[in-house]
């Protein structure tokens, strides 16, 4: 049962140290799923980048392609049925899609790690948490089982699990939801990766625990100066920790902005709809806004702007032409750095 594979002799990424661009850059990424009913286009030309120490929040409804993009970055898409017909995923300037499976495996967990949503089902139920944490050190650093357990206890201390030493030989089901998510975080942090992708890390938790977990994540990110991609549909979570936001809809990024700008002045009707559907204390007693309609079927995305059937501003042009993601400017034409919108009527939306 103890097949331990030592991959300690992994070199630093080729040309990694002198690379100056962003830590991770996703360029024109497309992902499709070939199903019996046809081809579902889950991701249609996504571009984004993350720097070291930066937090990018990817926002969107279920089925908007935010998780699929993350899985494509991690290389854990099920292929088939998944397929990446075009695009690049540059990690320190190197296209990971062109790497061999073995090269990618060595990046996974060690350079790029992922935190999953439901920690109970994402941790192996029949292995102790100490074993699952220690596995990172045993496989990637060739450590002995004993040393790995010591490291596992250190990690559990790091993520503030009380009585770590006593609990290292417990199983995932013996922990509370918040503690389990801390273990997931510890596992992702184990080898101090350059980038962490957190796929809805707090969705399964109650609100107070959510805040604790997010604080912990932000704190550790600072400490290790990691890049963080935070995938969520919870706008409340994003505001505190993110530096910039990418809003996704039907496999495309519809708006990109620094976090506070987006909250102040959304430049896409979809973002505006999302913001208006947050319950607010000062609007107590009033009806809560909801974006009407349902997210589109990815087998049959509407022509033109995918959001047009649900958009209050939709016009004829929206039904025929796909809006490009264009830079957003002030009314006087002054630059708004980092802001982009994919709406034919972005001017009216942001300034109107």
């Amino acid at each position: 049962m103890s097949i331990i594979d030592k991959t300690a002799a992994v070199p630093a990424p080729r040309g990694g140290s002198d690379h100056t661009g962003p830590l991770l850059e996703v360029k024109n990424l497309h992902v499709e799923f070939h199903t019996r009913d046809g081809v579902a286009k889950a991701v249609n030309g996504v571009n984004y980048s993350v720097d070291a120490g930066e937090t990018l929040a990817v926002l969107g409804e279920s089925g908007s392609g935010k998780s699929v993009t993350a899985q494509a970055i991690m290389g854990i898409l099920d292929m088939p049925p998944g397929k990446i017909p075009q695009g690049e995923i540059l990690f320190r300037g190197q296209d990971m899609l062109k790497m061999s499976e073995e090269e990618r495996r060595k990046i996974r967990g060690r350079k790029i790690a992922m935190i999953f949503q439901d920690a109970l089902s994402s941790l192996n139920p029949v292995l102790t948490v100490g074993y699952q944490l220690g596995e990172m050190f045993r496989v990637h650093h060739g450590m002995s089982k004993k040393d790995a357990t010591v490291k596992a206890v250190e990690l559990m201390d790091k993520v503030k699990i009380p009585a770590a030493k006593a609990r290292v030989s417990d199983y995932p089901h013996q922990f509370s939801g918040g503690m389990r998510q801390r273990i997931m975080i510890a596992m992702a942090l184990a080898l101090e990766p350059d980038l962490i992708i957190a796929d809805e890390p707090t969705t399964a938790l109650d609100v107070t625990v959510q805040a604790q977990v997010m604080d912990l994540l932000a704190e550790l990110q600072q400490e290790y100066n990691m890049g963080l991609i935070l995938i969520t549909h919870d706008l409340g979570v994003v505001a505190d920790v993110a530096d910039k936001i990418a809003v996704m809809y039907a496999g495309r990024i519809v708006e990109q902005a620094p976090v506070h700008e987006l909250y102040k002045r959304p430049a896409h009707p979809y973002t505006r709809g999302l913001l208006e559907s947050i319950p607010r204390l000062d609007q107590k007693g009033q009806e809560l806004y909801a974006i009407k309609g349902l997210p589109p079927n990815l087998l049959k995305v509407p022509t033109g702007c995918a959001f047009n059937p649900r958009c209050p501003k939709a016009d004829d042009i929206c039904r025929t032409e796909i809006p490009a993601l264009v830079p957003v400017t002030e009314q006087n034409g002054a630059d708004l750095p980092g802001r982009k919108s994919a709406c034919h009527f972005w001017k009216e939306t942001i300034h109107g």
Partner: protein
Amino acid sequence: MGRYVARRLLQMIPVFFGTTLLIFAMVHLLPGDPVLAMFGDKGADPATLAAKRHELGLDKPEWQQYLFYMRDMILHLDFGTQIRNGRPVTEVLGDAFPITLQLAVLAFAIELVFGIGLGIIGGLRAGRLADNLILIFTLLIISIPVFVLGYIIKMVFAFNLGWIAPNVSTEPVLSEMLAPAIVLGGLSLAYVARLTRTSMAENLRADYMRTAVAKGLPRRRVIGVHLMRNSMIPVVTFLGTDIGALMGGAVVTEFIFNIHGVGGVIAESISRREGSTLVGLVTILVIVYLVTSLLIDLLYAVLDPRIRYA
């Protein structure tokens, strides 16, 4: 844990009495007379028959017979004697059991290695050619009755090809047991393969498998440790009950290959209406079965930590 084991052991007591009573009743409900059978076609005068019956205690009411029988069994560990040649049942079983054990171990090894092996191949290639071939193969084995399979193997390998002797000798060596073991283990092999396959294919899609890949573990570790540990849980349960069944001997297989194991002795006792032999044999087998199933249940908790016995 200790309390659980104690409770399980106590539960064996009613099961023990229930099974013995049931078997005893069934044997006595069968038509035929063991004393009459002893004398064969020649027959004997009624006085001799009555004397023999009295000697064996067969003239008493049946409930008394049962009580006497149970008394001897519990107080003196006397499981009865064979009527025909007066040998104690424990001695008869002592001769037959090692042979059955040999056959059972071999059959179990075959179903373990090939069943799980085929299951892994099918599970990892679910829906593809190899999986479908294994599906057809296992379906075929499941649908052929064991006596047909036994005769086919005997015909082909013993009579047509002459690779094996048609009958197993009285002091069997392991190589002679191979063909009967394949026949005996075949059905369970197919079940084990299908169970393993389904369990693997299902767990492959589990969230923790995605996590294991995302941790950068090599494929053979993802499969060998993370997938296998989870997928083997239902298979072990099946294998456990199967060990118990195999220990009980295989009436049909042993008959086809003329093996003098437990199954053979049972078949013989039934045809001779030897109630006490039969009850004694089956009682011992019931105990073996109960103990193995307890051991398997305990092993189950080792495999799946979510199960806790209290």
